[in-house]
């Protein structure tokens, strides 16, 4: 028994540098996805909310347009989105395969669409009375968003963000097909293709731990922020 365990650790130790490198690649992809979700997903989600009917910036055409775009991106099977984006990535980044930054482009696109939808839903859950209160005080749309909507929605925005990040982890495991690397790719290449089953399970456990950590952290932050 002890011998088996020793053998396992030796084996893992042997693969450890490559495993850490893969985690780093996952980190790069997650970083860009998270950055895009925050910098662009939140504004797009807010725009979806504000332009929908009955809301302060009601605009049928714009809402329909953004809505359709988000739907298209989200209904793309992710693998096909990755492949479909290849020419575009090559054009603006120079190369489309073989490194985690190139692999981050599809991640960015899906991150914006996914989190925008979560943001829209969070804002929809705020009582309409809050918007009316802001309007009765003569708040501008900007003030409405920053001083009312985001304040009341903040914990649900964090929970949605957590769910989104966990999806990003899942999406990132596909990026091996374009040489993007990452811990998911590592599990497939070393575990599945080379029959190093113990290494594959180790990588999977790592992914599970990573997801668990995000979930725990997200719920904790949301709870601290929620004073309702």
């Amino acid at each position, binding site marked *: 028994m002890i011998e088996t365990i020793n053998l396992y650790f030796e084996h893992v130790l042997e693969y450890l540098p490559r495993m850490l490198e893969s985690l780093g690649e996952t980190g790069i992809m997650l970083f860009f996805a998270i950055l895009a979700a925050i910098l662009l997903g939140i504004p797009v989600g807010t725009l979806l909310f504000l332009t929908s009917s009955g809301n302060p910036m009601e605009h049928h055409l714009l809402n329909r347009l953004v809505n359709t775009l988000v739907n298209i991106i989200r209904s793309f099977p992710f693998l096909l989105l990755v492949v479909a984006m290849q020419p575009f990535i090559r054009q603006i980044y120079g190369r489309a395969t073989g490194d985690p930054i190139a692999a981050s482009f599809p991640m960015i696109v899906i991150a914006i669409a996914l989190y925008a939808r979560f943001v829209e839903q969070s804002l929809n859950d705020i*009582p309409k*009375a*809050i918007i*009316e*209160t802001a*309007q*009765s*005080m*003569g*708040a*501008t749309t900007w*003030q409405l968003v920053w*001083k*009312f909507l985001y*304040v*009341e929605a*903040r*914990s649900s925005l964090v929970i949605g963000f957590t769910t989104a990040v966990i999806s990003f982890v899942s999406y990132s495991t596909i990026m091996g097909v374009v040489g993007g690397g990452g811990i998911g790719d590592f599990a497939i290449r070393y575990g599945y293709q080379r029959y190093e089953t113990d290494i594959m399970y180790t990588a999977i456990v790592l992914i599970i731990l990573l997801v668990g950590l995000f979930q725990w952290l997200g719920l904790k932050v949301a709870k601290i*922020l*929620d*004073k*309702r």
Partner: protein
Amino acid sequence: MIEFDSVTKIFQEKDRVFTALSDISLSISKGEAFGIAGKSGAGKSTLLRMINALEEPTSGTVTIEDTTLNNVNKIHLRSLKKRTGMVFQQFNLLYNKTVAENVHLPLELHNHPTHLTVEEALHFVGLKDKKDQYPSQLSGGQKQRVGIARALITRPDILLCDEPTSALDQNTTEEIVQVLKKAHKAFDMTIVVVTHDLLVIKALCQRAAVLENGELETIIDVSQSNKQTADRPYYERAIEVLGSD
């Protein structure tokens, strides 16, 4: 002065047309405490919401001081709203902000040259010790006091109250009425109160309009009652009300 001139409001929802207000004309003097009474669905909230342009009339005009609301631009409208405070039935506080932050909120939206401080506003409604608490920690009556403090902090010219006591029990209602009465005296403003509770109007207002099915039935001078009941315990009033026929 607030003036309604032949105001009609028609709501159109898909294939349903609903007349909320029909041909209302009335004027409220500066500094007056004016009540708008009526059953639910009578159109009284719609009328109130026109005073700060949350609703627009389908026809007719609403004039505040010398400004007709129908044809003012957004910026002008903002400056009009700046001089109006509003108190809501469900308080409409931000539950993720503390009491002090809620009260301070209107000051973050506009420059108010002669506003109260948060401490003054909270002191006025008797909640100075609650300033660091969150609304979820307060009772209904306390939440409404926060709502009133938030409306008063800007020293508004007009205070609009939309069913301010309807979510509260009888004793708390009287407390809130007393706070509003005190505010009317202290800050020299016009108060417009919409409520189905005639006792609230009786205690607070000098004149009242009675609406029914969107039509103005009458405007009456309220004869003030001097009976102070706010300080009396609930059981005493229960015996009085239930025991008499």
